[in-house]
């Protein structure tokens, strides 16, 4: 047989063999018995092959042994052919069949390689689909394991993750919860006799956010139907009674993702109090449920930053004409690990530098498990670069002591007792520096108590006034969610092709989180 024809035949047979084994592993089972006989001189090899692939399933076993058997048959044929081809040459004497086997192995490997490249998946639709199908197929068949073995017989092949291209790392804060803090109260025992000092309340406060809580106030009381009838005669340090049956405790320095516990012991349910609540229907022998409640409140910060990208008009137009201008992602990067989401949007970007006015849409949403404390003032600072002008929210005045809500009323914006519930103010730049940023100012003092990063943010914002930035502060975040808009003016010339400036929003919001009720039952043993 001419060598070319011989190899062509050989290649054809080997390809067919490879294809059969791949797509019909089950067929191997049927061939198993026949193959076993045919392969008897080569069972040793088949066993070795089994070891390679770790084939425990019968189908795999069948496939491998069938492969060995078929190999044996081909080996025989090749041995003869090899003798015919090479036998005449003394240097190949005795080696001809070996070279034949080598060629078969080589051809099988080529078939494997061809299949691994999706070569037999030509009708698989898109390239991606074909690749996926091939990948799925190969994950599940023994041939993949053989391929793996040949790819790396020493077992040090990298996993796909190890040679993956540099991946974009997602922000490290993205997994942080959108909460500020949680409060939990547990009271023991669950049933007590009236006026017996046996109740212990364990209050756990956990900082779920990413900012230290310097000071947190806990309001402990009991609710209906029994009224405020839980009494503690002795209180731990930091706690004080407000009225009968209502206590306030201050805890400090709760670090992010850590908890603090407050234990108050020696509590009792005041029978007289319960009797007064129920009136004539009161029967002391019937247990009454007292719901113990705790509310935590503190100032917590939230921040957000919006990139505003501007592009030279000539350059931008050129890119637009050639369909090369890529739109920037809209919206702000907002801080996670806090309960208030601050989002900003300046519209489609990049903005051509021939556009000299734009707008900023600012929105906020309470995504936490608590509520904005309506009895206190939230503070929002909007920091814009000098070249963007002041961000004065529509409907709000531009200087200190101005207000909205209908008619003119003289109101002092740093009157913290009034602002939160009645008036919205905005103070900018110099007005801000001479009011809220002053140490003696009530707003400053209110913030100062929070200290930590809250005060840091406050000081940072105050310090930016006149240093290349405009800073406006407002108390306008009085709802759980809402939005405000302000105009931006763009005056900065662009030296390069593009320039990105940032608008930063920092909010210090009063937040209240209520713990689930804990129940104590009280009765009089008759």
């Amino acid at each position: 047989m001419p060598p070319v024809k011989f190899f062509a035949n050989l290649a054809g047979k080997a390809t067919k063999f490879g294809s059969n084994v791949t797509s019909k592993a089950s067929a191997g089972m049927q061939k198993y018995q026949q193959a076993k006989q045919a392969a008897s001189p080569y069972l040793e090899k088949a066993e070795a092959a089994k070891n390679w692939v770790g084939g425990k399933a019968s189908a795999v076993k069948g496939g491998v042994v069938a492969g060995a058997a078929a190999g044996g048959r081909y080996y025989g044929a090749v041995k003869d052919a090899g003798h015919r081809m090479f036998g005449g040459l003394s240097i190949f004497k005795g080696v001809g069949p070996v070279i034949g086997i080598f060629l078969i192995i080589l051809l099988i490997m080529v078939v494997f390689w061809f299949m691994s490249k999706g070569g037999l998946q030509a009708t698989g639709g898109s390239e991606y689909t074909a690749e996926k199908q091939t990948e799925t197929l190969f994950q599940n068949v023994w041939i993949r394991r053989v391929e793996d073995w040949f790819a790396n017989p020493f077992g040090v092949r990298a996993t796909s993750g190890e040679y993956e291209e540099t991946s974009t790392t997602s922000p490290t804060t993205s997994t942080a919860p959108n909460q500020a803090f949680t409060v939990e109260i547990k009271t023991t025992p669950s049933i007590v006799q009236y006026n017996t000092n046996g109740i212990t309340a364990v209050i756990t406060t956990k900082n779920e956010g990413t900012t230290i809580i310097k000071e947190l106030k806990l309001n402990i009381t009991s609710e209906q139907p029994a009224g405020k009838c839980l009494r503690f005669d002795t209180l731990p340090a930091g706690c004080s009674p407000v009225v009968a049956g209502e206590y306030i405790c201050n805890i400090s320095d709760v670090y992010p993702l850590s908890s603090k516990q407050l234990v108050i012991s020696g509590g009792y349910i005041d029978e007289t109090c319960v009797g007064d609540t129920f009136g004539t229907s009161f029967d002391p022998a019937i247990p009454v449920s007292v719901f113990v409640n705790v509310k935590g409140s503190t100032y917590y910060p939230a921040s957000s930053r919006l990139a505003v990208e501007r592009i030279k008009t000539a350059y931008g137009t050129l890119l637009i004409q050639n369909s090369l201008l890529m739109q920037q992602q809209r919206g702000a990067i907002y801080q996670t690990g806090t309960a208030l989401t601050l989002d900003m949007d300046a519209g489609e970007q990049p903005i051509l530098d021939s556009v000299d006015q734009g707008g900023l849409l600012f929105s906020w949403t309470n995504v936490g498990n608590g509520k904005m404390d309506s009895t206190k003032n939230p503070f929002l600072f909007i920091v814009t670069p000098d070249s963007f002008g002041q961000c004065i929210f529509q409907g709000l005045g531009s200087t200190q002591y101005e207000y909205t809500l209908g008619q003119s009323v003289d109101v002092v914006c740093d009157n913290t007792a009034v602002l939160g519930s009645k008036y919205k103010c905005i103070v900018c730049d110099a007005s801000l520096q001479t009011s809220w940023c002053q140490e003696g100012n009530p707003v400053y003092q209110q913030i100062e108590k929070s200290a930590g990063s809250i005060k840091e943010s406050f000081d940072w914002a105050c310090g930016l006034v006149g240093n290349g930035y405009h800073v406006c502060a407002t108390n306008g975040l009085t709802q759980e969610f809402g939005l405000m808009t302000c105009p931006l003016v763009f005056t900065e010339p662009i030296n390069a092709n593009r320039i990105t400036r940032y608008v930063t929003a920092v909010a210090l919001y009063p937040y209240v989180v209520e713990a689930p009720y804990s129940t104590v039952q009280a009765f009089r043993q008759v």
Partner: protein
Amino acid sequence: MMKKEIITIGLCMIFVSMILGCSFLGGGSKNETKLTVEQGIGVVGTLNVDELNPGLDGYISLTVRNNLGGESASKVYVSLDNVEPFKIFECGAFHNVSSEIRDCTGEFSLDKYLPYRSHGESKMFPGQELQFYWRLRAPSKTEISNIALRHPIYYDLEYDYRTTFTQNIIFMSQQEVLRRRQAGETYQVEGEASSGAGELRVTGATQQPVTYQFMNPSDITTTESEFPFSLSYAVTNEGKGLPLSDVVVLVELPRGKFDSAKKDIVADNETMSQYGWMKFKDMESEGTNCSTGSGEKNCSTWIQETYGNEFNSLFGTAITEDRLLVKIVKRTDFINEFSLYLPLKLVAGDRTSGMTALKNLQIPIQIYGFKMHNMYRYFTEGSSEIAVFPVRV
């Protein structure tokens, strides 16, 4: 089995394992960087820091390769754009990068007097690879106020490039076409064409064969008439960027087939000027200006500068023999693709040139090779983002 056979099989297996092991692993890598044929110069690798803490340094680099299948590129500039509020460390200090000019030599031949955010290399040969890098310092904790920053940084790559498109045009006599038709042979034959790398892809659109007809096919004593025909090309921007400059198109007409001192194919001044073509010599004498991507410049000077020393060897003879035609395609006219139409004619000639020679020598098929050269400044842009996350305590 003999011991010799076992050893040989073992050796074969090891050999196969090693070869295929390498090929499998190589094929699986996703890091392989190749330039496609459309690319002249391409960015084949970037190294970006994805995330930095405030005040810390990181490197950003671009690996740029000139396609091996293409030609030399010149004035290769790579710039970072929108770098602020990051600073660049170079020449021994950190710099604000918006407009500051480098005050040291720099690493690349054209670095001096460029802004810190830019690097420039005068020439890149085919297959050459350059790595440009910058050391960036993230804004400080105070500057970002402990609030995350995700900053887009762009890189711009621009360079002068040229491509050559060679095409053999088949000319066939009417008699030959008829003969082939009658004999059932194909007569629609096309000459081969070859093209190098480059974002502006030229494809020949000339209908082939160009079929010429003799006025007096059997009378070899008379001079034949000239035969007009035209060449057509389509030029498409296959790259991901855009030409910054006008596109210079040079077409080199073939020499005479029968007598190299004579021309078989010429362009008619009036006709070709209708389609914006002119002889190179005329362009030189007229002092036509081109938009080069960095200002207006005399076209002839710009072309000669870009081709450098190769200009004379490539075009010297063609210019002397007046066989070099030029067309300037204005950048503003070129959005994504354009077509070129060049009216030419086979001269009437005499016994050793043009149509008369074709008739007298009874040549049924003649092949003329045309070379088209494109020259332009190309620009591409890419981007990456660096996030600066504050360290929280």
